[in-house]
């Protein structure tokens, strides 16, 4: 039995503090999953709270068929998908200027206008992906989850996962291309530039 399963048992046995422990452990992951999905910092906080309220209601019935982590991410993404549908109409009425205002200002000292612009473009590009591709790219890229766990969370097969990841990357690449010109050749490849 893993740590989370033990914590859930404590909660089921009436120990309220156990729930707090889960929230404290996962609030940041949940918040950022939502933030990357919606691109909206102001809404992410309230939505993360809603996830934990849903969890609070449903945890007693959690049977442990999947890991808690998988279950929690699934609850979070379900909320994201639902909210997206609800907001679809509102967003279509929103002007591009208003849309941009929703992007939070940089939290770190990347003061330069160019970086800020690139950052806004990235946030919009991620938000602009179809939701199924968006979920895959966020779980892979920002949460660093292995394929197997992403498949479990989204209930998809490996082939579907890989093709979504590639399509997502391809469309992100096109949107981000203007910022690539001045970038250095990425590190992390074993190949020495001199050998090429």
């Amino acid at each position: 039995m893993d740590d989370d399963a033990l914590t859930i048992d404590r909660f089921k046995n009436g120990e309220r503090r156990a729930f707090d422990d889960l929230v404290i452990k996962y609030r940041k992951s949940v918040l950022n999953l939502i933030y990357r999905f919606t691109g909206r910092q102001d809404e992410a906080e309230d939505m993360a709270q809603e996830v934990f309220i849903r969890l609070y209601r449903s945890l007693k019935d959690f049977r442990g068929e999947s890991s808690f982590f998988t279950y929690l991410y699934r609850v979070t993404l379900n909320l994201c998908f639902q909210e997206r549908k609800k907001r679809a109409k509102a967003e279509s009425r929103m002007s591009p200027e208003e849309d941009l205002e929703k992007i939070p200002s940089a939290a770190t000292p990347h003061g330069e206008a160019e970086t800020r612009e690139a950052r806004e473009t990235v946030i919009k590009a991620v938000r602009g992906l179809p939701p199924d591709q968006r979920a895959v790219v966020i779980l892979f890229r920002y949460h660093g989850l292995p394929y197997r766990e992403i498949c479990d969370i989204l209930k998809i097969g490996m082939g579907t996962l890989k093709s979504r990841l590639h399509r997502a990357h391809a469309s992100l690449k096109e949107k981000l291309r203007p910022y690539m010109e001045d970038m250095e050749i990425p590190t992390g490849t074993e190949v020495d530039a001199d050998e090429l």
Partner: protein
Amino acid sequence: MNCSVFKTMMPDYETESLPGTTRLKWEEHLKSCAGCRLEWEEWMKTARLLDLHEEIEPEADFMPRLYVKLAMEDRKPRPESGVLPWFLAFPKAGMAIAGLLLVLGITWFAWSGLLQHNTPVPAVTQAAVSAPAAISEKHVADLKNFAGAGNNLLPEKIPAYNAEETPLEKVFAYDEFGNIGIDLVGEKDIAQLILDENRR
């Protein structure tokens, strides 16, 4: 290795999850194929640009705000044991009782409003009300909901406020009239207080 296999393995190479021999073949292809070198370079540049979508931190009041909502959740009647099944079985009687409760509720609300305005506001409350802008509209909205759910946040039930222990930004609770601040000795205690009140 051909180009399309190479491309499907880019994320695996990136996460270092290719087995040894496959990895060597992948790297050989990278050296020999200019098209795939460009693909890989753009893959990694995309990855690096995506890093600009930075992580955010939960707000400092994440826990207290959640506690208030959970306390409200605790107060909701359970569907299986609540009034709903009864209401569905006897809809006319239910409507009559609901109407009566509504009238009583409005009367009580108006009366308690008058009472509140005649009650001297304790020092802790004044401190909270004049707190800096760090107390957000969210706090106020949450507490209005909370108070609206029938909670009675009486100042005498609130432990003494110690500004040194708890900075004013942590004081977050108001009653529905906006003039009672509760709070206290740390976010945990705020919530516990509310929960204890609810269970009484």
